[in-house]
């Protein structure tokens, strides 16, 4: 027997190519293409008075300059609202090029195309735009105060207002023996993929056909959006994602203005056009996430059971809402984590500001929700003098309560119903891993040496693998090569490997024979995209189902040829053979030959399938009724609801008693995403997630000044952690299967980053002995907090 590939920590098939420079990223394509560049708004909020391009017209190499006025038809209309929601009462989306008003620094105003990017930037520098500067709304306090408005169509700067309630919170709160209120704050950060966005378009005028490459998380989405904007039949548009150097959410938004304008100009000019985003553009004209103000009121009994949880959130959605209100919806639902409060109400306001728009970034609203919930758990423990892990475990949903329906609507518009999970077992593993019970002694020992250490904890549940669907398509060639296609895209997650593992098992073929293509609409026209930790669950299961179809077909054909019943056959190592009599066998490639009756022999293998080769029954049609030629299968997976993975993290930090520098001494992760297709890849995902989480907890923020300028729009001042800032990560796993899908799996892509801010806040709080209510936190901020907590005169209550 060949070993089962599912569950093996095999090395990634894609890596030899990627680590030896064989990757093909967007900017590696189209060397003869014209280059696009953009004049972007230097103001956060302003009216455009006049645009004068005359100064730029003499730049050598200039091809064209366009402003909003030049954009015809739908190209000049607002970009689509991708995810409408009844509570999104004042949706506003931007334009490809701003018509008369700009709403954030970095918004595209003028497009320039030239023979290369140098010339395009030269011309950009010579375009004059006159603005009438309007008062900018920056920061949630100002958005909430609504002294000035971002959009006149959004009174109070409110894009959306939503309340969900289960149970009667007011009654439960009034009856609760203990009550606490927490004011919390969490800052903005951003995805920062290594490769920014990019688009390359080739227009074939003879064929009236557009071929488009985008560094995107959804090629089907981009294709449909561009076809609609350019009034092209879908059949005349292909979209392909080449190698993509990271997405983390920002590339699921579509179409970006450049994704419309680059193909539009390529068609207009009859020449390839390419745009490669530079880092500064990425900072000011893509998307950010995470900024929220939160107010939690919690009522609990003397044992720490939460009786009533009342949460109010103010979510900064930036200048526009193309992606709807997915982020605050996720915060408000996933906040609950592994807990079952007696009653729960969450009310949020999604507010406009004159800043870069806010769309999902890995974790997508969960880090904020978990932060609110876990800060609350710590506050309850502190109030009652109870162990923090104990308070959590008393509020856990128990395994026997699964499936557990929270009575809320999740981000996919379906019930928030957990499918499985064993939270007590996860906590037990985490406590063992970090040495929870031994920590008090360690802390005391450290204190005697003049050191300050603290232990933090955070738990989360993550809805993964949301619908609506994904597909898998498999063709076996006569050589035995297995071509697998799925429509969602890859940004480095290892899809070429894990999907091949699934197919190798299902079909009984060597993994080396399996070749996976993702994100190419020429190969799979129906797909949704890569987000919400959904690729393994959605495409993994779809591919497994497709493989089962192909296998059934292969067995039908081989059974006829070998004159046995299909049930007596198995496929091992790419050979179809009779169970118990491995001598009677035929290669899958041969079955592929037989599956496709031929008139013409193009090679030796094909001869066997031609019409005079013998062996065909003259009374039957060459292709049997109900069959199709070829050893090919296609299927889709469309679940009724998301599947819920979970995890718990703990960290030990040390804070310098004088300088307030913060060091993570240990970082422990217990993770449960069900059975792991490839444990090494899951670990890699967890590591990457924790690294981003550490960034969000200790380093990253988007520093806007009051006029709406982003002060740290470069990697020099936006402090993404280096490898040296990321701690060694200790991991342990539970594998609680999901009852919802054929493979029993759950998603793992976002997990690592979700609880990190909560965990680090918890640990610093433990080290310092005063509450941490605002994240991220830097040494300078911790130092100031200390002064506020030790100098009673200066104490002004909690920072909020």
């Amino acid at each position: 027997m060949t070993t089962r590939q599912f569950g093996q920590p095999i090395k990634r098939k894609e890596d030899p190519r990627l680590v030896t420079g064989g990757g093909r990223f967007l900017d590696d394509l189209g060397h003869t293409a014209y280059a696009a560049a953009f004049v972007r708004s230097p103001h956060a909020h302003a009216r455009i008075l006049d645009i004068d391009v005359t100064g730029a017209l003499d730049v050598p190499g200039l091809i064209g300059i366009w402003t909003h006025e030049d954009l015809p038809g739908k190209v000049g209309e607002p970009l689509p609202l991708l995810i409408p929601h009844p509570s999104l009462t004042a949706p506003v989306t931007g334009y490809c090029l701003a018509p008369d008003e700009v709403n954030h620094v970095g918004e595209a105003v003028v497009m320039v195309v030239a023979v290369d990017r140098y010339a395009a930037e030269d011309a950009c520098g010579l375009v004059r735009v006159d603005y009438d500067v309007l008062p900018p709304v920056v920061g949630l306090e100002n958005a909430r105060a609504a002294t000035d408005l971002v959009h006149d169509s959004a009174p109070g700067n409110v894009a959306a207002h939503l309340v969900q309630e289960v149970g009667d919170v007011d009654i439960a709160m009034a009856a609760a023996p203990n009550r606490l209120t927490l004011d919390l704050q969490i800052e903005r950060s951003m995805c920062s993929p290594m490769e920014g966005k990019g688009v390359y378009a080739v227009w074939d005028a003879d064929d009236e056909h557009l071929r488009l490459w985008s560094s995107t998380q959804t090629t089907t989405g981009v294709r449909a959006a561009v076809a609609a904007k350019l009034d092209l039949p879908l059949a005349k548009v292909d979209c392909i994602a080449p190698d993509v150097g990271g997405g983390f959410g920002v590339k699921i938004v579509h179409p970006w203005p450049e994704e419309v304008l680059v193909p539009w100009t390529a068609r207009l000019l009859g020449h390839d056009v390419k745009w490669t985003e530079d880092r500064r553009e990425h900072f000011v004209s893509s998307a950010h996430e995470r900024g929220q103000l939160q107010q939690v009121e919690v009522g609990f009994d003397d044992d720490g059971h939460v009786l009533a949880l009342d949460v109010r959130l103010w979510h900064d959605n930036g200048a526009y809402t193309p992606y709807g209100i997915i982020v605050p919806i996720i915060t408000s639902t996933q906040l609950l984590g592994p807990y079952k409060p007696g009653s729960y109400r969450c009310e949020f306001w999604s507010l406009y500001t004159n800043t870069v728009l806010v769309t999902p970034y890995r974790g997508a609203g969960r880090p904020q929700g978990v932060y609110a919930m876990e800060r609350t758990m710590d506050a309850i423990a502190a109030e009652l003098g109870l162990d923090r892990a104990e308070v959590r475990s008393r509020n856990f949903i128990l395994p026997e309560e699964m499936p557990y329906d929270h009575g809320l609507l999740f981000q996919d518009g379906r019930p928030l119903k957990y499918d499985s999970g064993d939270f007590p077992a996860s906590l037990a593993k985490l406590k063992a891993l970090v040495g929870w019970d031994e920590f008090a002694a360690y802390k005391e020992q450290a204190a005697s040496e003049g050191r300050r250490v603290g232990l933090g904890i955070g738990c989360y549940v993550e809805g993964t693998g949301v619908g609506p669907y994904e597909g898998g398509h498999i063709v076996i060639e006569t050589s035995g090569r297995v071509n697998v296609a799925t429509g969602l895209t890859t940004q480095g997650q290892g899809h070429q490997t894990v999907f091949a593992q699934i197919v190798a098992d299902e079909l009984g073929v060597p993994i080396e024979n399996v070749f996976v293509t993702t994100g190419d609409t020429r190969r799979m026209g129906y797909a949704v995209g890569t987000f919400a930790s959904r690729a393994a669950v959605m495409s993994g299961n779809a591919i497994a189902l497709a493989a089962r179809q192909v296998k059934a077909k292969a067995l039908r054909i081989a059974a006829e040829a070998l004159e046995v019943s299909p049930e007596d056959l198995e496929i091992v190592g790419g050979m179809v053979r009779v169970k118990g009599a491995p001598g009677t066998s035929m290669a899958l490639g041969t079955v592929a030959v037989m599956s496709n009756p031929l008139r013409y022999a193009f090679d030796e293998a094909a001869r066997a399938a031609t019409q005079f080769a013998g062996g065909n029954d003259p009374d039957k049609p060459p292709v049997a009724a109900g069959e199709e030629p070829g050893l090919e299968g296609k299927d889709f997976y469309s679940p009724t609801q998301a599947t819920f993975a979970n995890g718990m993290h703990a960290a030990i930090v040390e804070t310098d008693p004088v300088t307030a520098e913060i060091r993570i001494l240990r970082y422990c992760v217990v993770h449960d995403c069900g059975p792991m297709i490839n444990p090494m890849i899951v670990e890699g995902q967890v590591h990457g997630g924790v690294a981003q989480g550490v960034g969000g907890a200790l380093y990253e923020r988007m520093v806007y000044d009051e006029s709406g300028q982003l002060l740290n729009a470069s990697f020099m001042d936006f402090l993404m952690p280096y490898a040296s800032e990321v701690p060694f990560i200790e991991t342990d796993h539970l594998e609680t299967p999901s009852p919802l899908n054929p493979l029993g799996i759950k998603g793992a892509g976002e997990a690592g980053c979700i609880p990190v801010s909560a965990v680090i806040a918890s640990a610093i709080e433990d080290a310092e002995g005063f509450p941490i209510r605002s994240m991220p936190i830097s040494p300078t901020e911790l130092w100031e907090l200390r002064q506020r907590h030790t100098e009673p005169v200066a104490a002004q209550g909690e920072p909020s």
Partner: protein
Amino acid sequence: MKPAPFVHHAPTTVAEAVEVLRAVGSHGKILAGGQSLIPILSMRLASPEHLIDINGVAGLDRIEVRDDCVRVGALVRHTQLLQDESAYAALPLLRQALVHVAHPAIRNRGTTVGSLAHADAAGELPSVLALTEGVVEAVGPRGSRDIPASAFFVGPLETALAADELAVAVRFGRFPEGTRTGFAESARRSGDYALAGVALAITLQDKVIRSARASFVSVTDVPDVLDLSGAIGSYAAVPDLDAVADAVRAHVSPDTDIHATGDYRRMLVAELTRRLVTELLSR
């Protein structure tokens, strides 16, 4: 992020370089390792019409240890100086500071002299040049001259070099026998420009402190030297750390920026100095 057009000059001798400098005057910029200049050009914060690329100039890549100094040519990369054993033996402070300069990839290209010519108050090397009472050797259309550290740094990113002058080398002065040196800094991330840093030299004779001097990173406008000899006291066994910290706090004038407040930096540099004194004296 593409630079505006420029003319690229590639002289192969110092004389040729000076000739180009004479011709282009203030319209030119010298390009050494490019680790500071290229980002500035790419972001179009500067658009010089001429770049005088000195990377092909012969004879500028030498490190020379002399009795009174270590002389470093204009094309010596940070890495080369960092790894040079004789330079380390002669003046350990060089390596002690250089390990804090950025990351290996940047140190492999960036030059030590370029770093001084760039004169970023957040750079490590200006403080080293100041503390070693070093000298910059400049050559230009009007001839050669030596510029002492105390006159070299004029302000943030501003030196006494004229627009048409090339720094061909710097000489870092060596310390008297019995001197212990150290360098300490704190950055938000390892390899970043420091929030605050200190270079320290303490000269001992037997157990008696003869002199203690410090210079700083990121907390003074230009890297000047603070004489701590009075504050520290005489006996190596019982340095007056509080007095040292007070003197440092009084000397520095850090600004607030997005990474830390001025008050924090002041505290930080005093604490770094205090710890460094303790470390040097307990060696």
